[in-house]
């Protein structure tokens, strides 16, 4: 961060936090779905 930016009150950058939260959401939902699929007995997979 540019030290002269202190006091502007506006967040510049921070894209990595955005990507991290979206990616975490996708992988968590995907991972949980996968775990449900693996735990489902064969006869119930429909």
């Amino acid at each position, binding site marked *: 961060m540019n030290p002269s930016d202190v006091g502007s009150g506006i*967040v*510049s950058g921070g894209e990595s*936090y955005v990507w991290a*939260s979206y990616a*975490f*959401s996708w992988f968590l939902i995907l991972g949980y*779905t996968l775990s449900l699929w693996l735990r489902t007995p064969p006869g*119930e997979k*429909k």
Partner: protein
Amino acid sequence: MISLPHLASLPVTPGQLTGLLAILTIVLMNISRGRVWYHLPSWEHAFGLVGLSLLVDGQYLGLVDAPREAMMGETGRIMYVHVPSAWLTMVVFLFTCIFAVAFLLTGKRVFDLLVESTTEVGIVLSILLQATGMLFAKPTWGVYWDWDPRLVSTTVMMLSFMGVLSLRAALDDADRRATWTSVGAILATTSMGVTYMSVRWWRSIHQMQSSPDTVAKPMVLILRINAFAFLFLSVWLIARRWRIADAQARMDEAPPLPPEVTV
């Protein structure tokens, strides 16, 4: 954030495409087994389909269409995953409590299995809530975590419901397991109410709940789309989890195999 055309300007949205592909996959899977006419997919997949389509478009809107936040800049976009996960955590745990009361009043097995399913899905949602909350807090407040009433009560809520599942796993007798899971779930719901009220009751670094009055119109719409995506996906996940629990319960109930005859 990323330079892609706005959703409204696309002839077909990514969500519509996802939905179409998913429908095609389901149809093909059924045709390939030669039973498309008499073996329909389970009803909950309709929720999964709508949820997935809404999620794809909702996330696209959040990452591309949504305006930067005046003060938070790009990091304001974390709102579109953090806020829906907070809403759905609360809604799902509320249903855990409703099903627990319903089980204790009626004794019907389906409610017991729904308590188990909603608890597990609620825990997954609260993990998402915590993770996105920390990733939101760092660039805006300045820290990932602090010992603040809202953050601590959310953690207590998550641990309470994890405790309900541990209790359930520890009890062998089916009737006692069902009863005590429901009792535990009702008690754990207190922590959900406390989490919700924590920003009103106590001093916190977390701001009060936002409302359509405090959020600009285009942002409210994107929040709603993502919230409905989470809602539909939660119904789907709970129903799928319920199928596992139901199959397990039926297996446990099956009469033991006759003893082998030895000559």
